[in-house]
């Protein structure tokens, strides 16, 4: 797992390659100032770090499926003696691991 400082270093390199970057202020286009470039690098690095640290939560929520679907799986598991729901949840957790 990359540290925030490591990610910031990567982002800084990417932003250097992207320059010039512009902003729109009330429809007037101009290049970012040095201070605004620094803020942009900080914002992008923190956003990427947040995805690295917490992205697994949203990925799991999206992959679990609705509670109706999960209840349906559990109903048919109880009727058929299968483990579809349990296997599904285990697969979602396995596919979207919590960072160590």
């Amino acid at each position, binding site marked *: 797992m990359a540290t925030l400082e490591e990610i910031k270093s990567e982002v800084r390199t990417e932003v250097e390659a992207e320059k010039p*970057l512009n*902003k*729109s202020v009330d429809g007037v286009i101009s290049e970012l100032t040095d201070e605004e470039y620094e803020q942009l690098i900080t914002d992008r690095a923190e956003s*990427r770090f947040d995805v690295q640290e917490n992205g697994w939560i949203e990925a799991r929520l999206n992959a679990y*499926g*609705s509670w109706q679907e999960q209840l349906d799986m559990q109903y048919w598991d109880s009727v058929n003696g299968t483990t579809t729901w349990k296997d599904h949840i285990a697969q979602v957790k396995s596919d979207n691991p919590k960072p160590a």
Partner: protein
Amino acid sequence: MAGELNLVSSTTVTSDVASVTLTGIDTTYDIYKVLITNARGNNTSANSWRMRWIVGGSPETGNNYFTQWESHNAVSNFEWNGFATDYRYSGNTEMYIGDGSSDTGECYNANINLYKAYDNDSEARFDIEQHSTNSGGNLIAAKGGGYRKAQQICTGVQIYVASYSIASGYFGLYGYNYS
């Protein structure tokens, strides 16, 4: 005229910009509103939209933003996926204003009301209704609100998409009086 929506500032983005700033909030109107339509980032991974207040002529980047959200997400068969995401952000450096895919044919749209922005004795507040489609092509309809935990005059907003640039979209700041 009371209730009439008056354009204060707007821009239509047609080529990449890192951010869009709309200014002009003052005592003229009771409530200000930001409308964003057909907005997309410059990368298919660009999907998380953010906003900051303009304070003293610059975007406020301190840990002062508090926001809360409910997001109703539809899954592949358009079945309601519950409160798929329930966001609470305390003391953030930016306000989260929703997700929206930048894939072809998809976009981000929002209606944001701004309250008490130009008030030195109150915290600037906002509420928002937002809809979009996520990267899977599924509908996201979300609503939320928040405030800046500091009492200073705010004269505008800065809008951007996390980690990327804004490629297109309409951004407008309007004002209206309720009496």
